[in-house]
């Protein structure tokens, strides 16, 4: 019998808000959070909107002024990840617990604390730092090399590491345990949680911080997604007959996971539990985002099987549902195949704050837990007429009361990688 893996804290940030509770409230109110693209001159762009987070500079996250100075040199995606993760750690009460330990116990505590992140990898715009040298060089690499010193920050590489959130969480909190950084497009954030969950089950650590973060609001990504026909100029309408694509958003979310005994030993309040995970790939090429639904159905079945949960016991499905028709239909087919007549409430949150790509799975998991606690799930406020292929899903445009305490969270990314996660909200503070 595996020891239960519990969730003791969460935090999230996206265009809809700077805390899980605020984001949940905004979604319940039916508010979308998109704003005109303003980071660059987009007047000639057919895509007018994105889900940007205003004013994030990392101030106030850490007491150490030197650390604050270093993180303010980081990329935006890293600031978002550090924001969510540092707040989740603060919400978990871990710093106070660790501070109360004597030195040798604290060393042990930190070595038994793991960190897993999922992120978008290196942004295209990081490399724009080299554009002035390339332009001056005009094909002559000698001149390119000459110009570097004057045009590129010597620490460019260090500012660009995809694993910077891992690095700075370690430095900020002293965590020294197992770790990795997953750069697997749309499933990365969910996989950070999945890897943390399995690491705890295998005894690799006693507690783990899992964070997903991404910042896909950049010209090249928006341009390419548009040309691939994935972006809408309307609204994100997941599972709607008039769905026309996605809008990108930026954001991050983090969770503190612990073995039940580690959480009990420090008297932590249990907010939730991870019961099982499933993953599949459809081996369909880099840019494919959903063909038959077989892959998603397989991931769901694996996750339910590992959790020991029957479809009828699931109260809520937070779907990937990013408003692109092919992906939504194949996801709906997968859900229909597994749940049939036992269809739970199905929703997707991307209509409100956009597709945050590598952050999406983590944000969705944090919000799903909030919905279970609040016993209320936001509707898909942009839904008007469900697509015929999605009609059997239990969809609603307005908030729904939830019965039950189990949620299934689905994520998807390029390469048709599918990830499913079953989480539970204990009703009485114990799992």
């Amino acid at each position: 019998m595996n020891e239960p893996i519990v969730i003791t804290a969460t935090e999230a940030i996206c265009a809809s808000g700077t805390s899980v509770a605020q984001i949940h409230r905004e979604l319940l109110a039916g508010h979308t959070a998109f704003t005109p693209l303003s980071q660059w001159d987009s007047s000639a762009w057919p895509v007018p909107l994105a889900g940007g987070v205003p004013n994030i500079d990392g101030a106030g996250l850490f007491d150490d002024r030197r650390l604050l100075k270093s993180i303010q040199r980081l990329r935006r995606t890293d600031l978002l990840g550090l924001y969510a993760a540092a707040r989740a750690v603060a919400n978990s009460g871990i710093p106070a617990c660790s501070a109360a330990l004597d030195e040798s116990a604290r060393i042990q505590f930190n070595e038994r604390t793991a960190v897993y992140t999922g992120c978008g990898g290196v942004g295209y715009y990081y490399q724009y730092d080299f554009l002035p040298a390339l332009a001056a060089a005009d094909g002559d690499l000698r001149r390119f090399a000459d110009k570097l010193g004057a045009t590129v920050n010597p620490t460019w590489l260090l500012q660009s590491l995809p694993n910077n959130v891992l690095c700075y969480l370690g430095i900020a909190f002293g965590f020294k345990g197992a770790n990795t950084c997953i750069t697997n497009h749309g499933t990365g954030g969910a996989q950070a949680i999945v890897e943390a969950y399995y690491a705890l089950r295998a005894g690799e650590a006693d507690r783990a911080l899992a964070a997903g973060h991404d910042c896909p609001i950049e010209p090249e990504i928006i341009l390419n997604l548009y040309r691939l026909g994935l972006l809408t100029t309307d609204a994100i309408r997941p599972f709607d007959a008039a769905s026309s694509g996605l809008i990108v958003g930026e954001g991050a979310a983090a969770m503190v996971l612990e073995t039940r005994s580690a959480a009990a030993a420090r008297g932590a309040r249990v907010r939730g539990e991870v019961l099982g995970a499933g993953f599949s790939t459809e081996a369909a090429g880099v840019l494919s985002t959903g063909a038959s639904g077989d892959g998603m159905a397989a991931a769901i079945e694996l996750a339910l099987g590992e959790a020991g949960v029957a479809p009828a016991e699931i109260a809520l499905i937070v779907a990937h549902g990013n408003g692109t028709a092919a992906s939504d239909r194949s996801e709906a087919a997968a859900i229909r195949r597994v749940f049939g007549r036992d269809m739970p409430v199905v929703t997707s949150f991307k209509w409100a704050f956009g597709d945050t790509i590598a952050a999406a799975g983590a944000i969705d998991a944090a919000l799903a837990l909030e919905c279970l606690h609040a016993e209320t799930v936001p509707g898909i406020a942009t839904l008007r007429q469900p697509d015929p292929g999605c009609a059997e899903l239990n969809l609603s445009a307005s908030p729904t009361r939830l019965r039950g305490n189990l949620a299934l969270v689905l994520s998807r990314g390029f390469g048709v990688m599918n990830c499913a996660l079953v989480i539970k909200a204990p009703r009485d503070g114990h799992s």
Partner: protein
Amino acid sequence: MPSRRRVAITGLGLVTPLGNSVEETWRALLEGRSAIAPISGFDPSGFPVRIAAEVKNFSYAPPPPYRKLLKYAARHVRFALAAATQAIEDCGQSPRPDNATRWGCVAGSGMMANNFDDLVRFQRCFAANGRLATRLLFDPAAGMPDPIAYARNQPNAGVALMAQRFGIRGYTGAVHTACASGGQAIGRGLRLIRRGSADMVLAGGFDSMVNPIGLAAFSLLGALSDCNDTPSRASRPFDRTRNGFVLGEGAGFMVLEEWESARQRGARIYAELAGDGNSLSSYRITDSHPSGDGPIQAMREALRDANAQPDEVGYINAHGTSTIMNDRSECAAVNAVFGLHARRVQVSSTKSLMGHLIAGAGAVEAVICALAIHHSTLPFSANLEHPDPQCDLNFVRDRPVQCRLGLAMSNSFGFGGSNNSLVFRNPEDVRQ
């Protein structure tokens, strides 16, 4: 309690600066041939560092049904596809429709976004004066960027293409923790099989930063050796005259397989992948603490995970980058973990001959550890004439050593503070 699933290494594949196969790479390592030379892939004459370990005479041609994959595969992804093909052929198994969901793929992949040629094209079209003219991006007259380039430059393009090429339908993941990526990916593969997420895993790492951006980035940091006139001696891990690492490129892959099923089908087992240890240094972005704190925990955890004692380890393939800080911190860590046995365990850094493959390094060096066990032969550290007094380990120098190994260890420590150690066991020593 049910016994934990063991993991066998049954297939190996390498594309390295020393050779485009396992055999060629291994032979060159034992002969001590250096792969480090003046950079030939582009004009490096304006850079302070003009040497690297490049993959040579490389071509990759998938079978006809998969030819269209090539346009999505950048140079380092082609290294990965070639090395992975070798590993799958070597193990004698490949995913079939009835077991494809039981196959996984985990790879440590590099951190470059646009490859250099794509970036140059982009600059010419949209940043003629060095600043991105975002208005032009949607202007057909400026020449639209190529969506295939976008696909080619996805961080999980390598894993997605390997899944497509081999028909892998189970768990897939791209990981990036700088120079620890390849080792961590193989460790993830071990854990996928142990936890039952897969029965067979294609695991490895690949990278190429031997391009003007990669060379610029590491040169600006001052991390590279500038021994341009003596390239074959530029990488000299643990030598007191060392002055930085040498960039390499390539890929290493292995097929990991649940032990019992490998045994039952009579597979050749190179080694047991017995332990995986990971830690965060939580010290500085570029270095571990001089005491070895960080790497110490990774090595201890890998040994604990393998149910092994330090004195069972016969060989360590060191991270040994040839930078002052890494080599000292790593030696301090080996001393802390191995105690008196640190005088006996034999240590070498194969980066002395093939340079540093960054996200591919840990995977290539894991393959080398499996080969060291399989051939009872330890590759040596080249260019180690005067060991740094603070690097006081029992180095394999000058020539390979014939030696039956019980356990071997591979270390990989990354910028950002992620550390990975893997432990490999001689298959003859596996008792059920």
